[in-house]
């Protein structure tokens, strides 16, 4: 079965198989025979891969697997390629301003229907106790401003949507 794994923003498509005696994960860098066995600790496992045994702790979340290994914690995003293909196209990313971090809307400078020029301030947000002004990524017409002044938003929420270019 195939999976797309995301580590630090980099995606790798992998294939898991079993050759009768062991699992083999095929990554873009080659095939890795591997085996994972639980230890007594919560989430504790021994991973045997590449001829070595590694102690780790892991937890499987709905969209990502969290791995603590050698004193560091990593997040491995899991994407089912089939689901990605089935996903709807939500518009070109250049049409949207996506929240770079969670925060609160301080001021909203434009309304749906307004014509804006590239670089024009659209809204001021506050995150981590700092103000940031978000500007139009291109010339265009505002389609949606989903948040009002004082509203809280989450990471990756759409803060402003431009109408598609003609």
């Amino acid at each position, binding site marked *: *079965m195939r999976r797309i794994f995301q580590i*630090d923003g980099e995606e790798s498509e992998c*294939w898991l198989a079993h050759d009768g005696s062991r699992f083999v994960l095929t990554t873009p860098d080659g095939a890795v025979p591997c085996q994972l066995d639980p230890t007594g600790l919560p989430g504790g496992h021994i991973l045997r891969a590449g001829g070595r045994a590694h102690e780790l702790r892991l937890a499987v979340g709905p969209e990502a*697997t969290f791995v603590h290994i050698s004193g560091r914690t990593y997040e491995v995003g899991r994407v089912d390629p089939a689901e990605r293909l089935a996903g709807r196209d939500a518009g070109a990313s250049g049409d949207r301003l996506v929240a770079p*971090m969670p925060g609160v809307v301080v001021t909203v400078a434009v309304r749906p229907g307004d014509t804006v020029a590239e670089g024009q301030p659209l809204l001021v947000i*506050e995150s981590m106790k700092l103000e940031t002004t978000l500007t139009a990524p291109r010339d265009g017409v505002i389609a949606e401003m989903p948040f009002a002044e004082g509203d809280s938003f989450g990471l990756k929420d759409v803060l402003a949507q431009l109408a598609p270019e003609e």
Partner: protein
Amino acid sequence: MTISKLLVANRGEIAARVLRTAKARGLATVVLRHVAEQEGPAHLIADEVAMIDGPTPVAAYLDISQIVAAAKKIGADAVHPGYGFLSENAGFVAALEEAGVTFVGPTSQAIDLMGDKVRARAFVEERGFPVAPSAIEDDDPATFVDRARAVGYPLLIKPSAGGGGKGMRVVREDSALETEIETARREGERYFGDGRLFVERYIESPRHIEVQVMGDGQGNVVHFWERECSIQRRFQKIIEETPSPALSPEQRQEICETAAGIARAVKYRGAGTVEFIYARDGAFYFLEMNTRLQVEHPVTEMVTGFDLVAEQLRVAAGQGLSAAQGDIPQNGHSIELRICAEDAGADFRPAIGDILLLDEPTGEGVRVDSGILDDGKVTTDFDPMLSKLIVHGADRAEAIARARQAVQNYVVLGVTTNTGYLDAILAHPDFASGEVSTGFLAEQAETLTAPGADISDLLMAAAALSDARMVDEVMQIPQMHRKMGGWTN
């Protein structure tokens, strides 16, 4: 006056920490909980939990009348404010006084004086203690910009009513001065409801050194030595230690005595911290006084052996200080790491998520003041600090080694934390030699967030083999085809 039932008007790790001492002293204990808040360690420790409500969780913890009413209703005869929220709110102290409830902290006058940075500075300067060159808007608003200019660049703009680095701006060029003043004013108005500003000379590559003091309100003040808090991101501390590696014994004596002198000048009552900017040439200047228990107070407890919350409770109950200056040692070395839900590699963006697995370190010289539970949820409702890891060692090298070991074994899975980043700081040669300033994290940003060895193959193997759907599907394919699938698909 005696205290028999204590309400802790706070949450998270500090509520849990205060409750432990209060219970050990035989007090009945109550803690607050917002109706939408996750259960935390404090709710399990307290004898009772008082529910509060408000438009947002933070607003509820700032709601003076609701909290005073809760204290009365539950029969608490004292309130410990923790840090943040209402801990430095003179109106809260006055409201408690009126309700006949003891505030575990300083008088409202001391909070008023020290809460206004400008008045505090003037007070300290008038008494001959050192302050950095500055210009204060209120002295003559019409000439503020010119007077700011005269202080000289680089300079730092601060809101008069500020704290915690909010609204602070460094200005290096005259052309940016007026715009930065306007931005700082807006931020000051929003955060503190007060747009008044002052500027002071920005000391290049300074250290932040502060001194723990404790007063009985009668003019007796002792200090519990210094803490070095130069490891800051965005003006907020994330690693603190004591003793400071920068100070000679003579300098240590001088800075600690200065702090105690300032506290004595206000007949300070309870626990407080006098913060200083320490310049490269060894000069130090009064920065501000925090009229509460600090986040980083545990390092002081580790080297002195004193429980500062117990001292606070003693003083609040009118029992005075438990020790004379000569009885307060500074043994060994202690370091605190603030474990925060944030992505250090993405500009310290706050992280949210469900805690899927939590395993906190233990061991000799290791203390964890935690505000989270396994299965908890990390939201943006509150500060991103989840817990504090505090270690003690015979000397600084041993403390660093223990801190590294412990932070590497601090397992929080499900939400991004800064444990790896904290370890990278501890591993940095400049940290090891103690050669740091408040600019250290910004200057070393690239080194500190550099990716480690590429172990993607291991991570992907772990993720694949723990993925039940993937494993099930592979095992369902008839054996002879299992491998072939890989070729044909």
